[in-house]
């Protein structure tokens, strides 16, 4: 009888990409839960809608590119892109803002570059950045006021109707500036104590946001524990942000304090779920640290001296540009070699 002919190794571990992505989806659930508990149904609706649009546009593009549709849809990567956008868009963002973000992420940033594995930029962040610069009003005025799901938050039906209506701005009483936005704009004319009086900050660091960030941190640690992501990018990311904040912004009467940097806004989601997209990140350990630190530093710079209150998307995209450069200069030292072979062939030994 004819035996199977196969090149070694003959054994394989059973954790395919689809399962890796599934774990990412699962690890994001605590964060989504926290968002829903503290900010109402908006994020959950967004996540479901974005995932649906992501899978639909991925399928359409795969069909156009004459690729096996089911084979690629099953890798769950489109779902993760949809999830990340759903988690990061404002709770009351009109449906078409979400749709534009997801479609540009999947179609332009991912499939037009050659699909999974070939995109130089983080697709979700391309989509996010695009709608942020295109629809600034919709992207800044639709953040939900922190209100417990069971106590004051708009109901599911109302939320869904608001999103589906397609209005640029949601009902005024439901929304509120994000803590980072609020602090950044008020601190120029007020003291820290005055600024923190605003209801968006609540009793703790930033009402609701602190729990959302804590939940994403927990999910991220789960991913590190499962060895789905390495600790290097989050460590670099948070490290960069912390160092910058301590070095330049230690006076809370002038600058946003570190606690807000870490626990308000999209910091933890960015550090553990967005910046760790392997396709568009640096590859070696050292490279990942540099890449993460670059994002953390850029976030601080943009948040403090730039025009945007949160800056995860732009920082990630800017560091995506730097990835080939980082990779060239941070290869690991191979066993049996005195030092790493940096740069490109022929440049040095």
């Amino acid at each position, binding site marked *: *009888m*004819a*035996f*199977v*002919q*196969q*090149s*070694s*190794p*003959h*054994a*394989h*571990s059973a*954790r*395919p*990409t689809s*399962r*890796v992505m599934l774990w990412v989806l699962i690890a994001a659930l605590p964060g989504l839960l926290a968002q829903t508990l503290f900010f109402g149904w908006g994020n959950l609706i967004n996540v479901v809608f974005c995932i649906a649009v992501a899978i639909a546009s991925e399928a359409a593009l795969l069909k156009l590119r004459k690729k096996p549709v089911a*084979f690629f849809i099953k*890798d769950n*990567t489109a779902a993760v892109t949809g999830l990340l956008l759903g988690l990061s868009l404002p709770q009351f963002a009109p449906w078409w803002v979400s749709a534009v973000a997801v479609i540009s992420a999947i179609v332009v940033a991912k499939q037009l570059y050659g*699909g*999974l*594995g*070939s995109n130089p930029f983080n697709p979700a962040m391309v989509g996010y950045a695009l709608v942020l610069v295109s629809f600034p009003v919709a992207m800044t005025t639709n953040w939900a006021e922190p209100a417990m799901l069971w106590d004051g938050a708009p109901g599911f039906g109302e939320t869904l109707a608001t999103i589906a209506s397609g209005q640029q701005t949601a009902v005024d009483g439901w929304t509120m500036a994000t803590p980072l936005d609020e602090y950044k704009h008020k601190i120029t004319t007020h003291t820290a104590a005055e600024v923190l009086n605003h209801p968006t900050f609540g009793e703790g660091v930033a009402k609701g946001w602190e729990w959302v960030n804590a939940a994403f941190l927990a999910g991220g640690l789960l991913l590190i524990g499962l*060895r789905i992501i*390495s600790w290097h990018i989050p460590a670099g990311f948070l490290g960069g942000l912390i160092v910058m904040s301590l070095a330049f912004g230690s006076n809370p009467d002038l600058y946003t304090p570190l606690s807000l940097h870490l626990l308000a806004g999209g910091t933890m989601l960015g550090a553990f779920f967005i910046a760790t997209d*392997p*396709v568009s*990140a640096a*590859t*070696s350990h050292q490279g*990942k640290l540099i890449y993460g630190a670059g994002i953390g530093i850029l976030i601080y710079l943009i948040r403090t001296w730039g025009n945007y209150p949160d800056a995860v998307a732009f920082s990630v995209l800017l560091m995506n540009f730097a990835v080939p450069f980082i*990779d060239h200069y941070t*290869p*690991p*030292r*191979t*066993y*049996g*070699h005195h030092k790493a*072979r940096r740069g*490109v*062939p*022929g440049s040095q030994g």
Partner: protein
Amino acid sequence: MTQLWDFSGGIHPPEHKDISTARPIRNAGVPDYLILPLQQHIGDPAEAIVEVGERVLKGQKIADVKTGMGVPVHAPTSGVIESVADFPVPHPSGMADRCITLKPDGEDQWCQRNPVKDYRSLERDQVLHIIRDAGISGMGGAGFPTNIKLRPPRDRKVSTLILNGAECEPYITADDMTMREKADEVVAGLKIMAWILRPERCVIGIEDNKPEAIAALRKATEGTQTEIAVVPTKYPSGGEKQLIQILTGMEVPSGGIPADIGVMCQNIGTAVAVAQAVFEGTPLISRVVTITGEAVREPGNFEALIGTPIEHLLKQAGVNQDAVSRLVLGGPMMGYTLTTEAVPVIKTTNCVIAATAAELPAPPPEQPCIRCGQCAEACPMELLPQQLFWHAKATEFEKAEHLNLFDCIECGACSYVCPSSIPLVQYYRFAKGEIRAQQAEQLKADRARERFEARQARLERELQEKELRRKERAKAAADAAAKKQAEAEKAADEGEAVDERAAKSALVEQALARKKAKAEASQPPAASAPPAPSAPPAEQKPDIEALEKQLSQAQSKLDNMQGMLDDAKAQQADNVEKLERAVAKNHDRVQRAEEALSEAREKLAAGSTESQPTH
């Protein structure tokens, strides 16, 4: 407690070792026929030194390497040499190679053996010779001739001798069972090797998943200085470079050998073979082979004669033919699939996995690389597997080499963990093969260029020599012409002739006159011949000289023409045909001149016999 270091990366695949450790080592017996490949290790193949039809005894040398690196092959049992022909051999290519086939006669009759009781009384070279003559090559990996390995370069003193009992590949238990059952022989072999090398430190490295082997060796090494290092189970801790790192904290330099850092690794099976060669005088004619996998009912280890067809061992292990989907020689991480079970056990064969389809399923289809970096986490050589993959796929071999492609040990850890199930190792083998082919091509091109340049230089030199000869000829001709001219001028001065012919005839007459005068002067007056009879030869003489001159002229013209023709041919000019005709014409002319000359000479001779018998 021996200090241990860790190597980077590594994986923990399911071990599947208990499948084959339940039974003791069984003797596989003598099969119907034995197939003995002439090349069982790296280096040069042996040459058969027996004839077809010859009866050989057990342990008799039947093939040897006369020149080059290699060790002999011995008859594993007594019997008759049936053929020396090509048979399928255990090789990833599945190709056939030269083998001696032996038909056992069932008597298992030994040849003369020369056991050594006290090897310490011998010279080290003598012991090395015994090891070589016993046909021992490394029984774990590539099979490097052991006697050569045991004699490292003079400037590479081995300070640490490591016996590699890690056996990190899943499924394989040949070394494990050997250590359990033949611990004394293992230690005896190690002692011999240590006596040869005189290291400062002797370590046996064993993974902690082999408690019985560890206990057996602890007992066998009691009271000696040999360390038993229990290393954490992690694939590929048994890789030579990795084990050295674990036990010494040192790294083998890229492109170097362990001896460069004063370390040498030897295999468990090799140690046993060395002990048997020295103490029993037994050459390497059998080895322990693990027969395992879910398609055999009684998996376990077999003491199998070298040359035993795998088929024979599978049968002994109770193979379920229909269940075998994949036959792997070696472990599941680095082994290769066999196309046929007819291949024989050779000196490096440690394991055969008869796997069912469920046990080793076909890998899922390859997905795009998402640069997740799991491969880099797993790589024990600290390479960047996904970068190497991109470069190999894009055939950017220069970049792959820059990222140390050739340091890859093909352990398969990266492929094992790849979530996109990319056959990474296959890409690296492809890239390595392509680079080697390119290098060979480059070497060939370089040689061709050197040859071409040498030929060009030779042609140039020949041309110059020819030119030189032609110049010499031309000079000679010019000298002759000048002389002639001078003489003609002299003659012209005398007013006797103006044109060449006249000058010539004048010259001839002058010469005649001189000769005549000379002849008359030389002749004694008493024997003076009457002037009349001397006249006819005198009349013929100028004829001959003229003819001679004519001939030499024609000859030189022919030479000239020939030279021109040669040049024209060398330069492939278009006047070759014309020149050839001219040469032929001149050739005829020379011939005619020669004929005329010889005729004239004959005449002269006839004439001179009458007049000058003493000429």
